[in-house]
């Protein structure tokens, strides 16, 4: 079982996951605008790769949050985080 991550770290992981997914989508969008054999290969490698990595990281982060911190609403900036406090005490 993995160690619980601090909420701030989880939030930054969510941000990283969204950035990875977004960069994959942008690569796919740019390569789709000028379609050649090379851009298709680039799209499949540099577009789909980060996108899958981002999606997997996002899902893992959500799963981790639910398992260690309860409902994912604890990720909100001002949300009370009882279980995290309990772990610290």
């Amino acid at each position: 079982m993995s160690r619980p991550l601090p909420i701030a770290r989880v939030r930054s992981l969510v941000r990283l996951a969204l950035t990875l997914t977004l960069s994959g989508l942008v690569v796919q969008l740019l390569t789709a605008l000028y379609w050649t054999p090379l851009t298709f290969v680039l799209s499949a490698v540099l577009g789909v790769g980060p996108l899958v990595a981002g999606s997997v990281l996002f899902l893992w982060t959500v799963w981790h949050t639910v398992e260690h911190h309860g409902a994912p609403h604890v990720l909100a900036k001002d949300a009370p985080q009882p279980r995290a406090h309990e772990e610290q005490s």
Partner: protein
Amino acid sequence: VTVIAGLLAAVLLLGACLFSLDPLLANRRGRLLLLFAAVVLPGVISFESVATGVQRSSETSFCVSCHEMNDYGRSLFVDNPLALSAVHYQRRLIPRDNVCFACHTDYALFGTMKAKLNGLMHVFVHYTGGPRGPIELYAPYPNHNCMHCHDDARGYLEVPVHLSHAAELRSGERSCLSCHDVAHDLEGARAAHFWHPEAP
């Protein structure tokens, strides 16, 4: 166009989510929207994008877009009734949009996958200096690729020599190309000896 529009929508939605992450995380609807924008929509759009790309990579225009294939593409228009590629193309025996793929893929469980992997290698070779030496098939052309269409075709069955050699042709012991030995008339293509209604 659909794929581009979908990708654009996904980029905009995910970009907006990234910039307003904290408010989204604070409520249930926001988190569901985040799940949709970060996983569901990108997954569906990417799958569609790759599927469209794979489909387009089977098109004739894709194959002849590399200069190495110029003469092979032009050989489809050669005025030579013995050249297999020209006859198949001009008589519309195979779909014109997929002429290369129709003949140069194995009709088996992994035939398409094998053809795509070979195509990936061809793209790599094209962008790394081109082929060293003449372009050749990886293996002798298999009879079952011809038989896939011709096996029970009337035009095939009505030729006596096909019936007398049926067993050898089925087993692959005798190649179809041993008689039909002009696959691509490259000389005719270089000499621009074209069938005029369809000349490039």
